């Protein structure tokens, strides 16, 4: 069995699976049950000056029968008294000395307020601190959360204040609601952060009730934009995580990946793109703490199958595989291939290619069914047919030998080589 233990910026955890700062980490009872279920760490739901929440708080987007493909909330930070949270943190930490207990913090932008909350969290026994610079709704209107994460200078200033008194590692949780995630990451590092957690939720309006015209989640017929998360946001999170991992300046900061993690495969992808730990919220809100059992076993088995003794060997292995587009090989030629034995004759690939891509699939009726074939000269190897095909493995993309060496856009622009002849579009329309 591979070793799943990790160390992120000095915070030790028996495995990389953490609960994100969110409703599943609202109380000591919950965090204790999560640790019993197997979670390696938990980030306590953000503490600060207590707030009052609205009643209606969550809404979701379902897709083709899959519930909560995307999830949205307008819930604020903890609405429990600070003293209660601190007492429970202390109790949980004493019962679970080996688990990573990180406390998420958010207070007004004053040095004094930050110093006070850092000391309180550390005194309660926190293994680390996570600065919430990400909450995109409600708290940001009050100058906190994403309002900090969106301005690198504020971000850096507050990290500096925190580091003035902190004795435990400090993670900075960033908002994705920025044009470029790298500047705030660099600012966090410059301020002395020991790690970066991302992504927090994405500004969202999940939908509108078509009968009442009220947006969701509805609060007395009205709503407010919320924060979007769940499986829908994973690709955005993977991009932002990898953008930091690839950055020459901030790339060495340990990362805690957040955004749509629900399975061990999701976790492995985040780790391959540079994450040391992953944080989970929506999947637990959907299925409960027990999902971690499959995540632990699955990741462990996967590492074994790859001959890796520790999860640390997996980290970052795909970071260098992400490049700027201009560095990609223009002479990597692939073409679609249809396995006629496996084909069920639905014709989806034909219509997808003909209407939605490059008119490179032919079709004709063959008995009851549709017979399709790839028009090799027109196929640009875009993958679309293989993506829409309902039969696993029926359409594959095959690499073709070329007469030319690999060449990228920059080299091509500099006249350093030749590119393969490009496919031709099949149909030309004329004026009459």
């Amino acid at each position, binding site marked *: 069995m591979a070793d799943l233990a990790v160390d992120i910026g000095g915070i030790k955890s028996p495995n990389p699976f953490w609960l994100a700062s969110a409703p599943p980490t609202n109380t000591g009872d919950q965090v204790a049950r999560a640790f019993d279920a197997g979670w390696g760490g938990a980030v306590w739901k953000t503490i600060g000056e207590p707030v009052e929440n609205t009643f209606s708080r969550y809404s979701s987007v379902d897709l*083709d029968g899959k519930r909560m493909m995307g999830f949205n909330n307008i819930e604020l930070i903890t609405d429990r008294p600070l003293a209660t949270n601190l007492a429970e943190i202390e109790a949980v930490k004493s019962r679970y000395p080996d688990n990573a207990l990180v406390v998420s913090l958010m207070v007004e932008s004053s040095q004094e307020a930050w110093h006070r909350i850092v000391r309180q969290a550390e005194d309660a026994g926190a293994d680390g601190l996570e600065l919430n610079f990400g909450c995109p709704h409600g708290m940001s209107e009050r100058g906190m959360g994403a309002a900090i994460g969106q301005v690198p200078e504020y971000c850096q200033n507050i990290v500096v204040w925190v580091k003035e008194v902190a004795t435990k590692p400090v993670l900075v949780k960033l908002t994705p609601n920025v044009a470029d995630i790298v500047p705030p990451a660099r600012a966090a590092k410059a301020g002395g952060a020991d790690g970066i957690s991302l992504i927090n939720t994405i500004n969202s309006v999940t939908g509108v009730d078509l009968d009442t015209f009220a947006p969701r989640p509805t609060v007395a017929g009205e709503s407010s934009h919320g924060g979007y998360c769940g499986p829908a946001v994973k690709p955005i999170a993977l991009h932002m995580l990898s953008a930091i991992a690839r950055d020459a300046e901030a790339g060495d900061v340990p990362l805690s990946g957040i955004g749509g993690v629900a399975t061990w495969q999701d976790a492995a992808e985040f780790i391959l793109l540079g994450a040391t730990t992953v944080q989970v919220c929506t999947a637990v809100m959907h299925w409960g703490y027990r999902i971690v059992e499959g995540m632990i076993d699955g990741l462990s088995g996967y590492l074994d199958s790859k001959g890796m003794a520790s999860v640390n060997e997996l980290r970052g292995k795909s970071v260098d595989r992400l490049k700027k587009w201009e560095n990609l090989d223009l002479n990597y030629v692939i073409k679609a291939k249809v396995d006629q034995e496996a084909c*069920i*004759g*639905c*014709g*989806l690939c*034909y*219509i997808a290619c003909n209407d939605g891509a490059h008119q490179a699939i032919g*079709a004709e*009726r063959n008995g*009851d*069914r*549709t017979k399709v074939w790839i028009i090799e000269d027109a196929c640009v190897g875009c993958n679309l047919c293989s993506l829409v095909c*309902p*039969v696993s493995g029926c359409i594959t993309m095959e690499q073709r030998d070329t007469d030319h060496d690999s060449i990228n856009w920059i080299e091509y622009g500099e006249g350093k080589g030749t590119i393969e002849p490009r496919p031709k579009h099949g149909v030309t329309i004329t004026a009459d």
Partner: protein
Amino acid sequence: MCWDAPCIRACPTAIDVPGFIKRIAHRDDLGAARVILEANILGDSCAHACPTSVLCEGACVYNDVDGRPVPIGKLQAYATDPVVQGGIQLFEAGPATGKRVAVVGGGPAGLSCAAELTKRGHEAIVFDGAAEPGGLNTNGIAEYKLERTAALGEIEWLKSLGVTIRHNTVVGDDVTFDELLDGFDALFIGAGLGDIPLLGLPGEELAGVLDALQLIADAKTRSITTDEFAGKHVIVLGGGNTAIDAARLAVRLGAEETTVVYRRGSEEMPGYAHEAAEARREGVAFRFWSAPHSVVGDGRVMTMRCTRTEPGDPGPDGRRSVVTSDGPPIDISADVVVRATGQAPRRSMLGELSDLELDSRGRVVVDDEHRTTQPGVWAGGDCVNGGKEVVNAVAAGMAAARSIDAELRR
């Protein structure tokens, strides 16, 4: 969602199956119902009565993935049940043309023809000899497939569109063909088939010998109860779908042993293999290569006596003929014998139309547009095809209506 879906071609009424499923997926259930009912005005009863596994679902490409086709029949019922049974009328009678069409027979062919004509602005009046309309749709389809109340509910829905039905009106008795030909601009015959004729067996008059269609109808109206079948031995004569329906009904009525006796083999049986398999699962036995010889009893049926048969030379239709083999008769203990040996054509009724040509089996001869040989007269359904599915009758009725409409607008 197939690009060129084979289920559409497998449906006699060519329902745009991907089109209606797409609308269900888009939460447009009424739109889905409209797509179905525009192609098949009896789409609700067809959703329940159709042998989908040999039609749309049998053609589904997903059979090749995991043997599980898209559940088209269930989806269709999902869309049409609330509309048709809920009395939501999606259509309206077309602008009046002033033309009148008489429709003989209130079964699926006649009803669908009348409904389509109504949508096209013609006044369609259905003449039906029974107290209740619907023909076999109301009384002849096993209740576990299509409930009688649903069939009648669908007819109420057709009436809300503007279809007029004259019940208890036997064409030939209560109104003559000549009166219809004189009083209407066109005539559609959807008269279906007649009774199951007696086989001429000794003992066929004994109490306990039943007509399969009458049995099914009685069961649907609850005028027969399990008391009459519980613990009994039931013999069903015939090898078609009515025989299988009757046998499965006997099981449901509590028969202890139910045996289908058919003079040919399993492969020659005209009933659907999947229906026969269901019947077997329910405990129905099949005795092939056995022909009824006589019914033996004392006032009531006691024994069904059969003779062995064997395949002979292929006949002109390619089916093997049946020859009686030598050997002692086979006596099967029986309390009830059900005749399911096929309905007879309505020769005498149809004979009243002097220019109407029937083929050698008594079926009305029609062209591609369902025109008969008698000018101004169209026909469709069982009286033309010899007995097929509800959906075939609907397809014929609607096609005939289109042809009549074109003719009347000429």
